[in-house]
């Protein structure tokens, strides 16, 4: 096996681990919340079992040992030999964290040496307090008919699970009872031969009694074989009739409803096969491949514009030729197909935000515990889909907002009771689509942000002057929180004060072409609202021309487009400014920042694009405005590296490369030019 294949397995394995750990976390949370939930225990057991299997296969023994012990503990809970206690939940969380560390170790290849043996020992102590596991097999299979013998619940959990897996894979399960002639000499050998014969028709999942547990000279009269076959209608009686020493064969199908891996099947459990079916209809695809597909579609778009241009040329040249008409029709059709293809590939890159939101319950639990606050978390819209790059990028800012809400927003239980609020705090995180954007909110019912305190703090920290503070509206005062160097809490706690301020959150969101806003009612709570584009891969851009070259300004930064006569340009301290709607805006020629010669030969009106970078507005003079267009954003690559004022590039309709401006970068360059 080549190393390439091994690494591919590794990727699949790690994805599975990641997924299972997430499920595990949710289920442990559920256990903590609901106490003893049979479903949660069942599901936890399944994830531990899955992880045990795959880690054993990949040779990660520590993970295998740990999951094995977890499985053991959960099995006892399932059998009601242990009950759920806080202590156990904490222990399970500890296991989960250790599994996370083990996973990281595998990813990074760096040993962080978590003390797995100690944890295994702890789990051991925990379980040994419970009684040993009774073996739940029918006492005497001799006396039973097949249908009676197959008391599904009496099978060990492992076997139930295996049977369930076979059912999930679409196999039929049959219970075949074989009566062996009393005069057969070597009954066990015969039983094995029958087992082999059955194996040729399907998979022998289990036998009762288990053949491996029998002595060579055991006196067996009846054996029950549980067989999984692809074909539901196998005639076992006939298949076995030709064999010696068989007194009778009785087969009956084991029905799905009986075959739920639970001692007490609940209505909720029957969803499982359905879910399994739905899962089978999805495939995991490497993002690289989607990226490649996207590139190929991009090339098609460019080629298509060429074809349609050539079609036009030919149309003029051979106006009377039918073939040219056909060409145009085909060309139109191809354009439409390519457009749909582009949409589909875009959608394929979307993921539900769930995988990010799933991290929050645990985080909120841990944080509120460490701060001694009681907090209810509500999450809505976890199915909202957006581009995976956006999901990856938005994680940190959201976590920061949540930490802030818990640490600074929601008051302590006492303070809340004083204020006449329920002592339990409320944190709500939502996601929803709104037109072509995603809106994410983080909302708490805490004390809110006091605008006056914000002002005085900002003055004290020298962020604004006292005169400036006077002139600020309530909203502006609250927005001071986004200024660099601002932190409202008097002392930095280790929860939210990690040197990362709200200004970083804001700039992070703006980097994603997003907007963040605050809604606040003093004493009632704070709501942060983040608007994000669905994807970073395609943006709407304004095409502008500078000295015959086309550049793209992201529409998300464009505030307005105006044409001004040159005589309206004024100067303040020799810097050009322009007044638009009563607002004095600095005016720049983009040319100057891009080493492109200015081209203005007595024009009556200058096209000006007003862009916003944070609170700042800048008026930019360009040569031509060419309308907007959806553009596929591409990186300039690491060889070119980071370029100030340019965020990336795109392929224009004519096949040339157009550069995309980064407005924040241009604002920075302006600042640098001024101070320098």
């Amino acid at each position: 096996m080549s190393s390439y294949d091994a690494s591919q397995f590794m990727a699949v394995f790690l994805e599975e681990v990641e997924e299972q750990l997430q499920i595990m976390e949710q289920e442990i949370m559920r256990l903590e919340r609901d106490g003893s939930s049979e479903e949660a225990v069942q599901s936890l057991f399944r994830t531990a079992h899955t992880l045990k299997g795959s880690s054993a296969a990949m040779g990660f023994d520590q993970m295998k040992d740990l999951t094995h012990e977890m499985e053991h503990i959960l099995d006892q809970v399932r059998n009601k030999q242990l009950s759920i206690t806080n202590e156990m939940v904490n222990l399970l969380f500890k296991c989960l964290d250790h599994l996370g560390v083990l996973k990281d170790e595998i990813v990074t290849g760096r040993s962080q040496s978590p003390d797995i043996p100690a944890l295994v020992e702890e789990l051991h102590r925990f379980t040994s307090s419970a009684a040993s596991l009774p073996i739940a097999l029918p006492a005497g299979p001799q006396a039973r008919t097949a249908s009676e013998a197959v008391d599904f619940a009496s099978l060990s959990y492992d076997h139930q699970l295996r049977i369930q897996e076979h059912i999930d894979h679409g196999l039929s399960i049959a219970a075949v009872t074989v009566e062996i002639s009393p005069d057969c000499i070597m009954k066990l050998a015969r039983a094995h031969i029958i087992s082999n014969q059955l194996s040729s028709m399907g998979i022998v999942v289990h036998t009762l009694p288990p053949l491996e547990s029998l002595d060579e000279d055991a006196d067996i009269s009846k054996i029950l074989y549980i067989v999984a076959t692809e074909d539901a209608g196998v005639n076992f009686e006939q298949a076995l009739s030709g064999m010696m020493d068989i007194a009778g064969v009785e087969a009956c199908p084991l029905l799905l409803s009986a075959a739920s891996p639970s001692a007490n099947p609940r209505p909720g459990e029957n969803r499982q096969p359905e879910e399994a079916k739905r899962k089978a209809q999805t495939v995991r695809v490497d993002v690289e491949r989607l990226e490649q597909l996207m590139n190929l579609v991009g090339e098609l778009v460019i080629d298509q514009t060429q074809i349609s241009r050539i079609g036009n040329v030919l149309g003029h040249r051979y106006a009377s030729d039918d073939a040219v008409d056909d060409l145009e029709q085909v060309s139109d059709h191809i354009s439409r197909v390519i457009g749909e293809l582009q949409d589909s590939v875009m959608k394929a890159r979307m993921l539900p935000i769930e995988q990010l939101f799933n991290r929050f319950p645990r985080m909120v639990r841990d944080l509120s515990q460490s701060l001694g606050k009681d907090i209810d978390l509500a999450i809505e819209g976890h199915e909202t889909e957006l581009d995976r790059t956006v999901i990856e990028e938005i994680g940190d800012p959201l976590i920061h907002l949540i930490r802030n809400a818990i640490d600074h927003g929601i008051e302590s239980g006492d303070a809340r009771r004083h204020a006449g609020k329920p002592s339990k705090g409320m944190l709500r995180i939502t996601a929803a689509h709104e037109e072509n954007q995603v809106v994410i909110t983080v909302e708490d019912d805490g004390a809110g942000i006091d605008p006056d305190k914000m002002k005085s703090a900002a003055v004290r920290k020298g962020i604004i002057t006292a005169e400036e503070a006077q002139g600020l509206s309530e909203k502006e005062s609250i927005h001071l929180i986004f200024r660099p160097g601002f932190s409202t809490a008097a002392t930095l706690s280790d929860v939210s004060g990690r040197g990362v301020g709200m200004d970083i959150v804001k700039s992070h969101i703006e980097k994603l072409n997003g907007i963040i806003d605050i809604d606040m009612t003093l004493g009632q709570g704070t709501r942060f609202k983040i608007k994000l584009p669905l994807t970073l891969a395609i943006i709407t851009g304004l095409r502008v021309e500078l000295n015959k070259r086309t550049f793209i300004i992201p529409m998300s930064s464009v505030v307005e487009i105006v044409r001004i006569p040159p005589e309206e340009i004024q100067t303040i301290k020799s810097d050009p400014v322009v007044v638009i709607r009563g607002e004095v805006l600095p005016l720049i020629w983009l040319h100057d920042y891009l080493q492109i010669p200015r081209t203005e030969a007595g024009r009556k009106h200058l096209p000006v694009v007003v862009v916003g970078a944070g609170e700042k507005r800048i008026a930019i003079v360009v040569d031509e405005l060419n309308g907007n267009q959806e553009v596929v954003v591409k990186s300039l690559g690491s060889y070119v590296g980071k370029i100030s004022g340019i965020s990336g590039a795109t392929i224009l309709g004519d096949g040339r490369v157009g550069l995309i401006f980064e407005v924040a970068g241009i604002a920075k360059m302006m600042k640098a030019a001024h101070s320098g």
Partner: protein
Amino acid sequence: MGSNQGQFIEVGIAKERYAIKIYDIHEIIKMQDITAIPNSKPHIKGVINLRGKIVPIISLRNRFGMEEDPYSRTTRIVVVNHGEEIVGIVVDRVNQVITFSDIQSPPERVGGVDGSYFSGIGHSNGGLVSLLKLDQVLYE
């Protein structure tokens, strides 16, 4: 790849002849419209669109301190592999595929150009050809 190991593509700027290992070459394309990138490193001429991929372009003339010549019908971009990325090098012409009977280590300077740009001097029937050390040529 063994048989390709000794094969080179011979390119020319002005009257000089240089060779690039065939193994390092992604493809050779005709001169294209290059989009200059403002504020970028001085040796990067700009970028082109190579079938949907943005490819940075440098010029060998510029690298070796020669005057840029107007592009002619023979001007080519030699696209070479550079780690995970590809980079295009503008040359005046691409001459031929070439092998060498002997390769010697480069002198300190080769015709006014720093010897560190070369991995060696190749002897062929047609004379001496300087072998480009791509890492150095592409290095900023």
